[in-house]
């Protein structure tokens, strides 16, 4: 059969293609994906003839889940439309959440400012000009109470993008839930809690890798008993991609990070089928349409097979990779910003065709500032148009069986396994990070991409081609220092009114726990209840564990 097909293709090349190329040659190219992967002119049955459909692809809801984890795709339930938002004071962000819920958003997603992300209180010298700028500032439990005022935590799911101080912020959320009367056994949401990609890409780390990994396995253990519906980690490729990786590197490093967390969980004495079902993923959706779709399809297969074969997981929920997607912030241009709506729509469509479980669409003004209320609404509407007008949600995995997509899915899988082998040889992802391996790979890819853009091998509309002089500027959200001043005076006030003996006592207990081996979550919850600040809790752990400093790689 394959001989006949090949002959047919060769015949086509000789009789149809070659005369055409002589008359009208192809454009100069290069015909590569945005990641630099060469793409052939045509894919045909021979590209998929070696694939055993039942074993290697399978139907939706069946191992290895290439075509999706739900048998009914989006006919059962649409993806969660979860728009990441946060700026200024907790009250301002609380209002934005209420607007998003009113506009039909189906989940909350908290963006914290850099001081919160780095475990620093607003009065620290490095926080100069940073408070409330890139997200909402949360200093203590009092701020968390303001953030969710009038929002019932029993009825919504909340995703919180927090990593190094994840245990402290999660503890604050739990205490707010407790005060609202919501049952920890029933509440649901996600904390990002993915420190490995911080060392690799986004660089919002505080403690060295090993104690950082302990905080994560402590959360795995704590949630298994106390908050069983919580997604304890969102293993993230988003930031790896934004830092300039290729699609393949994003896939390979992210899933390898996932394997590392599973291994550390097992080493900490946890049962694989108890904590792995609560691990979720977070991918980027960049502009190269089919490469992204292949990436998501390959991700599900790689995870399912690794969980079953590498770790012996028996629970199908351990095999099923669930993921959130965000469209690529890095692809947005400051020039001709309205074009970003189109970019985002295409990226969102790729995520949906790849079977994402939840989605954030970026706003058109995000190369310039945090989004305004109006641009954030257009971003949400983009998802609603895909869901309700495009028709793509009628069918499960509509691109399954495409010669090209299946072949590309296979290539992504193979490339990932090669990266895993290299990282395994180094001893694991923690060791690879200590060697600077993924960091170097990403720095190289990012420079290669930028060079391709400068050569105009890659066209970016409005930036290196189709440039428009004297563009009109759009109005943007400008965040002044009011939020910073307010958060600073609140911190002073808090320090005067809280029970300082309780703060000292609980922070001492946290230090003692950190020196030993017991789970850190109960000690952190005690600090939070005493209104200890994020900065104070992180400082207590800095005293015990020290701070990580990277050797920069250019």
């Amino acid at each position, binding site marked *: 059969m394959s001989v006949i097909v090949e002959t047919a293709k060769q015949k086509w090349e000789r009789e149809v293609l070659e005369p055409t190329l002589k008359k009208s040659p192809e454009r100069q190219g290069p015909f590569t994906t945005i990641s630099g992967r060469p793409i052939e002119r045509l894919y045909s049955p021979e590209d998929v003839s070696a694939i055993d459909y039942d074993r290697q692809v399978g139907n939706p809801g069946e191992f290895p889940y290439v075509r999706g984890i739900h048998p009914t795709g989006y006919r059962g339930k649409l993806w969660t439309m979860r728009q990441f938002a946060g700026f200024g004071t907790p009250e301002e962000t609380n209002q934005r959440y209420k607007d998003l819920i009113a506009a039909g958003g189906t989940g909350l997603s908290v963006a914290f400012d850099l001081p919160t992300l780095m475990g620093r209180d607003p009065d620290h010298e490095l926080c*100069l*000009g*940073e408070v409330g700028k890139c997200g909402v500032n949360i200093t203590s439990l009092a701020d968390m109470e303001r953030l969710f005022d009038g929002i019932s935590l029993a009825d919504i799911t909340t995703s919180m993008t927090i990593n190094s101080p994840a245990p402290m912020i999660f503890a604050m959320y739990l205490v707010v839930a407790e005060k609202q009367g919501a049952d920890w056994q029933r509440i649901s949401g996600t904390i990002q809690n993915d420190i490995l990609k911080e060392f690799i890409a986004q*660089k919002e780390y505080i403690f060295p890798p090993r104690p950082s990994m302990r905080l994560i396995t402590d959360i795995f253990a704590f949630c298994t008993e106390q908050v069983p519906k919580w997604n304890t980690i969102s293993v993230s490729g988003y930031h790896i991609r934004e830092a300039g990786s290729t699609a393949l590197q994003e896939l390979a490093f992210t899933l390898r990070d996932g394997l590392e967390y599973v291994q550390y969980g097992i080493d900490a004495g946890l049962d694989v089928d108890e904590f792995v079902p609560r691990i979720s993923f977070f991918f980027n959706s960049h502009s190269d349409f089919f490469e992204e779709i292949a990436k998501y399809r390959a991700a599900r297969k790689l995870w399912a097979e690794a969980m079953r074969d590498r770790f012996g997981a028996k629970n199908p929920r351990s095999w099923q990779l669930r993921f959130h997607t965000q469209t690529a912030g890095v692809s947005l241009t400051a020039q001709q910003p309205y074009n970003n709506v189109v970019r985002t729509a295409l990226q969102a469509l790729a995520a949906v065709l790849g079977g994402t479980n939840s989605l954030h669409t970026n706003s058109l003004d995000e190369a310039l500032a945090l989004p305004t209320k109006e641009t954030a609404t257009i971003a949400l509407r983009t998802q609603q148009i895909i869901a309700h007008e495009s028709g793509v949600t009628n069918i499960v995995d509509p691109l399954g069986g495409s010669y090209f997509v299946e072949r590309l899915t296979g290539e992504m899988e193979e490339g990932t396994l090669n990266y895993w082998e290299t990282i395994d040889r180094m001893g694991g992802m923690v060791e690879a990070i200590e060697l600077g391996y993924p960091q170097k790979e990403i720095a190289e890819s990012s420079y290669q991409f*930028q060079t391709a853009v400068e050569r105009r091998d890659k066209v970016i509309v409005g930036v290196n081609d189709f440039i428009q002089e004297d563009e009109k*500027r759009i109005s943007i959200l400008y965040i002044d220092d009011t939020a910073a001043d307010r958060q600073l005076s609140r911190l002073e006030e808090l320090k005067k009114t809280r029970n300082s003996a309780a703060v000292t006592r609980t922070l001492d207990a946290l230090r003692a726990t950190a020196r030993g081996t017991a789970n850190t979550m109960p000690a952190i919850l005690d600090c939070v209840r005493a209104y200890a600040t994020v900065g104070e809790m992180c400082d207590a752990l800095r005293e015990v564990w020290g701070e990580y400093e990277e050797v920069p790689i*250019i």
Partner: protein
Amino acid sequence: MSQKIRVVIAKPGLDGHDRGAKVIARALRDAGMEVIYTGLRQTPEQIVSAALQEDADVIGLSILSGAHMHICPRVMELLNEKGLSDVMVVIGGIIPDVDIAKLNAIGVRGIFLPGTPMRQIVDFINHNARARVA
């Protein structure tokens, strides 16, 4: 013989998004400049002291977080205090229009927004950095 232009590339503030800083550092190095990358989370004091120690002609700041109106004035002030006012300061990042004139007014020479070609930054530094005498 003319000496290489010496550039300190710095990431002030708390932000760790260093893709831009690293790509520019490499482009300047490939263009024949001597590049010193400070790494992450540098205070204005640390940046100016690096410029002094490294005998830098240019300081390139990468700021994406919105903290530029706090960080840049402090860097300029410290440069003046240390008698380094001939060190050229340029910034790359997300800078709202309303802040561009303010930054120029305090002496920031080059402001490079998202999408600026690397070539343009290299040319700007080549033309505007202080002359080095062998």
